């Protein structure tokens, strides 16, 4: 039985919030990929990825963040990552994601970060 993974979408002002829940691995990464692609297709490129309920991530999940970031920033948007649990945050840190992505403690901090830095250079 695969470990479950769910992406919930919501709005926070003009920002889109994708809340991840469960296990993000090579099996479930396509779901996350589709969720981001749907946002881009709808013209929404200011994304907060909320990882409060994300229990597990492998490099397949991290690869999804990497494959979209340039396109999103080219369109003037960004992905801000928030609320990761320590076990998951550790993997982002091992691969040096903090050099490329804004990762903050909470969703309000992610909203604040968008106000300060709407987009970044890749």
């Amino acid at each position, binding site marked *: 039985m695969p470990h479950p993974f769910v992406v919930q979408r919501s709005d926070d002002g003009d920002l889109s919030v994708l809340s991840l829940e469960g296990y993000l691995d090579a099996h479930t990464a396509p779901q996350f990929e589709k969720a981001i692609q749907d946002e881009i297709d709808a013209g929404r490129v200011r994304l907060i990825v909320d990882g409060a309920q994300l229990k597990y991530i492998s490099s397949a999940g991290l690869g999804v963040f990497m494959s979209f970031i340039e396109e999103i920033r080219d369109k003037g948007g960004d992905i801000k990552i928030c609320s990761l649990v320590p076990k998951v945050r550790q993997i982002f840190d*091992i691969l040096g994601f903090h050099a490329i992505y804004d990762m903050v403690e909470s969703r309000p901090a992610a909203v604040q970060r968008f106000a300060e830095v709407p987009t970044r250079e890749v």
Partner: protein
Amino acid sequence: MASIEQRFTLLVPSSTQNLALIRDFVTNVGFQAGLGDDDVAKLELAVDEACTNVIEHAHRNDLSKDVVVRATFDERTLRIEVVDTGEGFDPSKVPQETLEKLVANHRSGGLGLRVMKSLMDEVSYEIVPGDRNRLRMVKKLRKEV
């Protein structure tokens, strides 16, 4: 006194659907070997990365092929072998580029090996052409005297 070696083997069809089952297997073995929560989490991810490489690259998602995970531990080390009969995908041959370069080139390849090397004490790879390929990883157990 020689320590008793314990061996465990899991054989599953080559599908990402079975990654959860593989993770449950190594997690259980890790706890049985005496690893703490943090090291078990590292083991779980390293084996996931190894098996994902096999399923997606060596076996190209061919369900008729099997992934074999062997775990062996004694009082000093926990050793993992991931065996496949695929095309001999050697993850160490994937260029290790910087994250910035991977993003710029729209590639995410090579992250798995980087994760494995960061989390395990040793990672090595052996290809026997026409026979099988074997990735070996070692985690030292903290039982120093």
